[in-house]
């Protein structure tokens, strides 16, 4: 069954429920046999990821479509939940002072048939559990799984409110899932379905058009049951996660293990600005540079020093010359 078909059937079911709610009902003894075959046939668990604080009332928007239950979807209509659960569900009776719109007396009550009981689950059930449940002749109260948030259908509005409050307490809040706010919630539309357009106030009659500050009309709300505020303590959500890391503190340059030499620092032997010496490859060293002596021209290199050839005239001169040496 496609999601769209499921939605259509749900809409029809919702209409019938609404109509039946205004009429007085007979004791719901037929509910049990109606639920029993359902349970026996396919007591598939309804997997609901998000817990709903108001599982009893069925919100009715002009064209609101309850979402089929993918795990992250909106809450499943409690009527369907009731059908999937045990048969010891007390009959539901509308509160006289409730905001639920009474069913017109001219409209005959419609009995729910087996066709109306649709399977709203989209998650394939576990096979062993399903087989065991199918083989069980007795209807047993199934304990909701840990992740589900199904609740039993209350016999009265008071029970519904109390059960809703209890569910808030009992329900195990999954991690990373913020608790929904109490009160009317916007239904999450499944994929492929367009959201209904808001009614154009200009088209409405003056009697119907209201200031937005007053809120929606009872007709718009439908069978909305206002729930009181939860008395339970505020749910503390433990946001698990890693602690916020401290911003990385930049290490000052002086804390480095090795301080790189800076250009302005006296390096002594190393100058970053100084160009490196050119590398001379071995191929470039082939012919050495030869420097020859320059030619010398002109000057007389030879100079002979001669001793005077004039003999001394007297012996005394010769003696004196010899003694002067």
């Amino acid at each position, binding site marked *: 069954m496609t999601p769209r078909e499921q939605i259509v059937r749900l809409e029809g079911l919702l209409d019938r429920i609404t109509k039946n709610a205004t009429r007085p009902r007979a004791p719901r003894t037929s509910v049990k046999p109606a639920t029993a075959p359902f349970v026996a046939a396919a007591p598939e668990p309804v997997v609901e990821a998000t817990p709903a604080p108001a599982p009893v009332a069925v919100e009715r928007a002009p064209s609101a479509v309850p979402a089929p239950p993918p795990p992250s979807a909106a809450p499943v209509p409690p009527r369907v939940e009731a059908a999937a659960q045990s048969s010891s569900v007390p009959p539901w009776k509308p509160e006289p002072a409730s905001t639920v719109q009474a069913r017109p007396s001219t409209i005959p009550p419609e009995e729910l048939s087996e066709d109306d009981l649709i399977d709203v689950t989209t998650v394939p059930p576990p096979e062993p559990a399903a087989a065991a449940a199918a083989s069980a002749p007795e209807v047993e109260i199934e304990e909701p799984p840990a992740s589900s948030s199904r609740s039993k259908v209350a016999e009265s509005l008071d029970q519904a409110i109390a059960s809703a409050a209890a569910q808030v307490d009992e329900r195990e809040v999954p991690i990373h899932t913020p608790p929904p706010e109490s009160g009317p919630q916007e239904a999450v539309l499944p994929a492929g379905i367009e959201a209904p357009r808001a009614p154009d106030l200009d088209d409405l009659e003056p009697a119907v058009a209201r200031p937005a500050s007053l809120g929606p009309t009872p007709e718009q709300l439908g069978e909305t049951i206002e729930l009181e505020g939860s008395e339970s303590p505020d749910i503390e959500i433990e946001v698990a996660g890693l602690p916020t890391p401290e911003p990385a503190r930049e290490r000052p340059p002086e804390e480095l293990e090795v301080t790189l030499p800076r250009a302005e620092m006296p390096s002594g032997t190393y100058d970053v600005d100084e160009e490196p010496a050119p590398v001379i490859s071995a191929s470039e060293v082939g012919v050495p540079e030869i420097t020859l002596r320059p030619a010398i021209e002109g000057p007389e290199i030879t100079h002979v*020093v001669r*001793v005077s050839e004039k*003999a*001394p*005239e*007297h*012996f*005394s001169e*010769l*003696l*004196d*010359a*010899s*003694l*002067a*040496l």
Partner: protein
Amino acid sequence: MGTPRFDPTHSLEFNFDRGTVKLGGQSERVLVPADVLASLLKGADADTRKDFAHRLGTEVGRRVSERIDGTASIPTVVEHLGGELALIGLGSLAFERWGRALVVTVMGSPLRGEGDELLAGILEGALQRAFGRVSAVVPIQRDDSLVRLLVVSKGTAERVRGWLASGVSFGDALARLNGAGGSS
């Protein structure tokens, strides 16, 4: 007036009767064998030898100065100094001029190599008596019969002796003297 020539006539007088010998009519002389004199000088100390040599040279220079003075020429000096040295029987004297260096050569000295120091002393004495110059005479070269004696100052004589002792030839020594003497 020219310079007289050296006349050795009647310079040596033998008085056979008295048994004396005199040289130029003055003090008596003794005729002694040369080798005996060499051996005597060899056994004497350096100062004794030097003193003996200086006294002989002074006698020689006295007799030279009686006939010539400082203005005499080199040949005159050679004639007269050489004649006197010959009369005592120490060989024949000549002069050599090696640049500015005066080298006296003596040929035929009976004292041969052992007599070179004696000759050096005699020349020192004679040059000092005859020409009034204090000098030092250094034997620089000796062959069998000829000895060359350099006439220099006392300081130069020590350097020359050092050169000669280190194996420098007398010619190189004389060249050194003349070169050093030329730059100074």
